[in-house]
């Protein structure tokens, strides 16, 4: 009877655990007959809730206009979360029907054959004679070309998206500062010479920096284009970064930043760069930015209300005029079940009415000429006054094509940052590093030219038979092991009750772990079906271990950090624990205070520390300055030496957990040992060495192993605080793994990294355990 009860309860638990999943499936299918559902996914970065609302309104209107079609809207947040979500959905074969694609991601998606070609719809529109027919000629041609891909480069070939809006770039200027410095406000025709002259004059104002110049790869390339040079040829066939003109242009930019005081913000810290520095009113110009900063800059109060007047000027000209087109499309999933309805929706979302609504947001330029040149966009009731400036740049603006392999942009960005932003490399060094990294990358063709497909059938058959063998073996052992009927019945009940966990473990832990090993031997990209993966053998491992310099840097950064953080953290935790054993009034409060940081959210804490380490106004550098020590640029040009130590110092914030374990260990030590030592005449240092340390040794061992493992797994801090920058100088192992897996879609490669990390952790743990055997005394744990 009892046994029956156990069986029923256990089964109910399992059923309950999976009911939710099943329930979702049932509700999803609950559509009226004849109705279809489209899923739409977008992001809302700078546009915020306003953008969210505009899309939602537009979709409601679409539903009203198209009975029988329902639209489900997803918005995972910013662009980063959007791409992660999209990738996951695509890998699961559950991609949304219609979604945003940024121009820079188009090549990658199109190459993986994930997007529906739109040419046949477009050509049909022309002849359809419909009142709402889509006419591509009404769009700025550069924006349309940004979503054409010919299998090799963007700009020509098949159309994969309809641009919803776009922007050109330029500088945002603080007009009040220009007036104060007596610098005439620039026009759309200004040159770089005028720009830098203005920056120098403005920098002479007390406490003012001339300009912020972001060194994002696309901005660097746009800058180079104004000098008639580039880092890569337009056909993406040859690297041009080593050309003398390119080097000269880059050296000029670097010199402005690093050889002059206050002319450009020198990228001394992350909060001192980017769009937000302009808000403070201490930077006279900021750019090159597109239209997307406008919603947040509109929050700057006018001069009368304590803010300042500002406006926009397009990018200055060098030897030629150039600008870039940054744009986002609405695209359709290649495997959508409702291509016709999806196309209808894309048309709806890019038509004149939707574009007008979007224009009011101020976030971007409408892609339809007629709307862009209408009051919907040019209305100057809100700043900037110079809306025309964005349009002035359009004739010279082109889409800057990127190789389909996103690694190019990554490597370019990180090496340029080291040269231009942090300045710890000369341009020659940075360029050399770029070329070497890029060559290593392109020479790596996992699996060779024609790798075989992954033999999934064979693998799954093998895995299943292995699983069968294991189960049979376990059953046999179980059968033999316990002879008495009672014992066996108890074991059965035990397994039954543990089965929800066991199932969960097998499905959500053991299977993915085993799977990741298989994937590490393939070139699966993480955003296509598994069947598209090729078998590459140990190529990923070989590349990682012998050739990938970025990986080696990541390993070095992590090791440097571990070497500092583990001893520092453990000494501090033990010291704090010893202090916390004092019998003082309110000691519980102190203990709680020390532990508190450990329960705070990692992201919030990371942002806090980002400010503490800020090289210009940060707490630490202020303190150092006050005692006459010039503080390093922790995450700037001194990052190679001071970046990982900064993280190590930050990790001390979290010693509370270790401290609590030490505290418990300390309280286990018999008081008599200290008394005996007292009577023997040992001083406090001797007592610490001969009693506390040996008696605590098992706890130290435990904490040490945990700390070593944790130090190999640093992610959140680095992701939030530096994103691995500058260059790769704070790119920790797991951060690089994340970049590879979820940003560069190299899941096989990332899986190999995960397995190498696992082996490293295992080896270290084993080493510590073995070497410690003679130094650990378990007396205090024995009773």
């Amino acid at each position: 009877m009892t046994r029956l009860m156990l069986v029923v309860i256990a089964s109910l638990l399992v059923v309950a655990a999976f009911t939710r999943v099943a329930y979702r499936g049932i509700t999803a299918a609950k559509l009226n007959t004849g109705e279809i559902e489209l899923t739409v996914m977008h992001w809302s970065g700078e546009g915020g809730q306003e953008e969210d609302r505009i899309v939602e309104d537009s979709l409601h209107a679409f539903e009203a206009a198209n009975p029988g079609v329902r639209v489900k809207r997803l918005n995972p947040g910013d662009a980063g979360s959007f791409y992660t979500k999209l990738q996951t959905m695509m890998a699961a074969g559950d991609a949304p029907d219609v979604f945003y694609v940024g121009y820079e991601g188009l090549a990658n998606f199109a190459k993986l054959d994930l997007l529906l070609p739109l040419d046949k719809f477009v050509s049909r529109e022309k002849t359809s004679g419909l009142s709402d027919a889509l006419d591509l000629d009404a769009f700025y041609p550069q924006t349309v070309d940004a979503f054409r891909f010919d299998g090799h480069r963007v700009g020509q070939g098949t159309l994969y998206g309809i641009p919803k809006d776009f922007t050109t770039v330029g500088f945002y200027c603080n007009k009040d500062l220009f007036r104060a410095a007596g610098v005439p406000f620039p026009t759309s025709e200004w040159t770089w010479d005028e720009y830098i002259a203005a920056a120098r004059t403005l920098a002479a104002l007390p406490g003012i920096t001339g300009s912020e110049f972001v060194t994002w790869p696309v901005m660097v390339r746009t800058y180079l284009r104004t000098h008639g040079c580039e880092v890569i040829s337009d056909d993406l066939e040859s690297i041009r970064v080593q050309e003398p003109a390119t080097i000269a242009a880059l050296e000029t930019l670097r010199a402005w930043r690093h050889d002059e005081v206050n002319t450009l913000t020198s990228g001394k810290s992350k909060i001192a760069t980017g769009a937000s520095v302009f808000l403070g009113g201490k930077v006279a110009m900021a750019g090159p930015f597109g239209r997307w900063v406008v919603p947040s800059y509109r929050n700057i109060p006018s001069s009368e209300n304590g803010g300042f007047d500002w406006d926009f000027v397009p990018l200055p000209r060098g030897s030629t005029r150039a600008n870039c087109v940054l744009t986002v499309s609405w695209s359709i999933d290649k495997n959508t079940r409702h291509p016709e309805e999806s196309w209808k929706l894309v048309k709806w979302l890019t038509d004149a009415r939707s574009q007008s609504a979007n224009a009011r947001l101020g976030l971007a330029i409408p892609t339809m000429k007629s709307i862009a040149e209408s009051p919907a966009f040019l209305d100057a009731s809100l700043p900037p006054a110079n809306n025309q400036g964005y349009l002035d740049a359009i004739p010279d603006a082109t889409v800057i094509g990127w190789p389909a392999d996103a690694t190019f942009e990554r490597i370019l960005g990180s090496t340029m940052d080291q040269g231009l932003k942090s300045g710890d490399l000369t341009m020659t060094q940075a360029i050399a590093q770029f070329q070497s990294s890029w060559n290593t990358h392109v020479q790596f063709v996992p699996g060779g030219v024609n790798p075989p497909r992954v033999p999934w059938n064979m693998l799954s058959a093998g895995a299943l038979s292995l699983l069968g063998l294991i189960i049979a073996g376990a059953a046999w052992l179980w059968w033999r092991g316990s002879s008495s009927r009672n014992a066996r019945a108890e074991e059965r009940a035990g397994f039954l009750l543990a089965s929800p966990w066991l199932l969960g473990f097998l499905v959500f832990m053991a299977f993915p772990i085993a799977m990741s090993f298989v994937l590490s031997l393939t070139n699966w990209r993480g955003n296509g079906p598994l069947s598209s993966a090729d078998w590459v053998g140990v190529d990923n491992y070989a590349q990682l271990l012998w050739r990938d310099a970025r990986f080696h840097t990541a390993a070095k950064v992590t090791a440097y950090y571990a070497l500092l953080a583990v001893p520092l953290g453990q000494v501090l935790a033990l010291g704090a624990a010893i202090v916390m054993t004092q019998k003082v009034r309110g000691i519980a409060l102190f203990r709680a205070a020390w532990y508190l940081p450990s329960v705070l959210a990692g992201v919030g804490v990371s942002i806090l520390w980002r400010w503490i380490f800020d090289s210009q106004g940060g707490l630490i550098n202020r303190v150092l300055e006050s005692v006459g020590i010039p503080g390093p640029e922790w995450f700037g040009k001194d990052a190679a030496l001071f970046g990982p130590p900064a993280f190590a110092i930050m990790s001390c914030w979290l010693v509370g957990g270790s401290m609590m374990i030490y505290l418990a260990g300390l309280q286990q030590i018999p008081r008599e040992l200290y008394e005996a030592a007292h009577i023997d005449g040992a001083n406090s240092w001797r007592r610490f060495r001969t009693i506390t340390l040996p008696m605590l040794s098992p706890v130290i061992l435990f904490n040490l192993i945990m700390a070593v493992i944790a130090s190999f797994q640093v992610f959140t801090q680095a992701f939030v605080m530096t994103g691995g920058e500058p260059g790769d100088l704070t790119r920790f192992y797991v951060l690089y793994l994340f970049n590879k897996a979820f940003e560069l879609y190299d899941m096989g490669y990332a899986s190999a990294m995960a397995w190498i990390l696992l082996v490293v952790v295992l080896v270290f743990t084993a080493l510590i355990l073995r070497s410690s055997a003679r130094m650990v005394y378990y007396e205090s744990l024995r009773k």
Partner: protein
Amino acid sequence: MATVTLAQVSKMYDGGVRAVDAIDLAINHGEFCVLVGPSGCGKSTTLRMIAGLEEITDGVLEIDGARVNDLPAKDRDIAFVFQNYALYPHLTVAQNVAFGLEQRRAHGNPLRAMLTGQRDARGRESAHIAQRVREVSSTLGLDELLTRYPRELSGGQRQRVAVGRAIARNPKVFLFDEPLSNLDARLRLETRTQLRLLHRRLSATIVYVTHDQEEAMTLADRLVVMHQGRVQQNSTAQIAYETPANRFVAAFIGTPPMNLIDGHFAHGTFESHGVSLPLPARWPSLINQSKPCALGFRPDRARIERATAHDGAHSVSAGAKINARVVAVERLGDRTDIAMEVARESAMNGGQTRLVARVNADEAEHMREGDEVRVLVDTAHVHLFEPGECGARITAS
């Protein structure tokens, strides 16, 4: 060798708990003094105050005539053996024994000794320490164990190392805090004897704490029975056994303890429920008095005879006899302990009075539980106590 004197020494803990209450104690050169009492009686606290591990709240502690109240433990020249031995886990037996000597050397720092040109002095010290460790180890039979770690030793061996650590320094006073209670019964007996021998050989002053009165009696030159933070009796073990100072000591010392019957004394007769004992006129202070008191006699001062049917009623008045019923018979070989309940006229008035008699085995051969018996008390060896838990013994002539 040293004297230890406690004058009106008290220990008060936070919250007003008085663990030790103004005790006086004078321990002579070379004396083996045992503090004994139930747990919480203040004996360990007293020992720890002597050691300097607890602060003295009030009173004066002298070692060799010098006030040491405020002297730190390490400067009192005492050694302390802990109940759990407190051996340093990462040091070998030899290092454990030498530890105290190492801490006291004048040239402990090898670097400094080298720099100040005192390497020879340091070397002589080292040789002396090694010599001392050898002496101690041969005294205690630790030679085989010197290179071992505490975790590799048995309980008895650890105990010996703990003693070795204490004697290595040749202190003035040895303090033992229940050193045998973690050993099994047989080893405890053996070690007891060894301790006794060691004491004789070292002629050291020892203060020894135990809750085991048997251990206390066998070891003590001076037995100090403590209860509720006060000294109840301070004498030799024999005196404490034969003439306990009060009812507490009477009940605490001796196995099995003294039989005690609450009752009333009047006109030369002790009366209790079911008991009426005419007593010889040994208590001059009680002549013509009538007062409540307790009667006590040792189990081995009682004899037992089987009650027969025909002498029923009148035997109650037949002198020092108590009617009782056997509730347990514990045969110890040559002796047998018989536990009895006194026959009561009524079941009123609290619990049953229990008695124990220790008799020769052959006398008790046929005794069974439930037998009705008469207890014959040797009235020459009975004691009378004032009422109350610590009621003083009423002096007999």
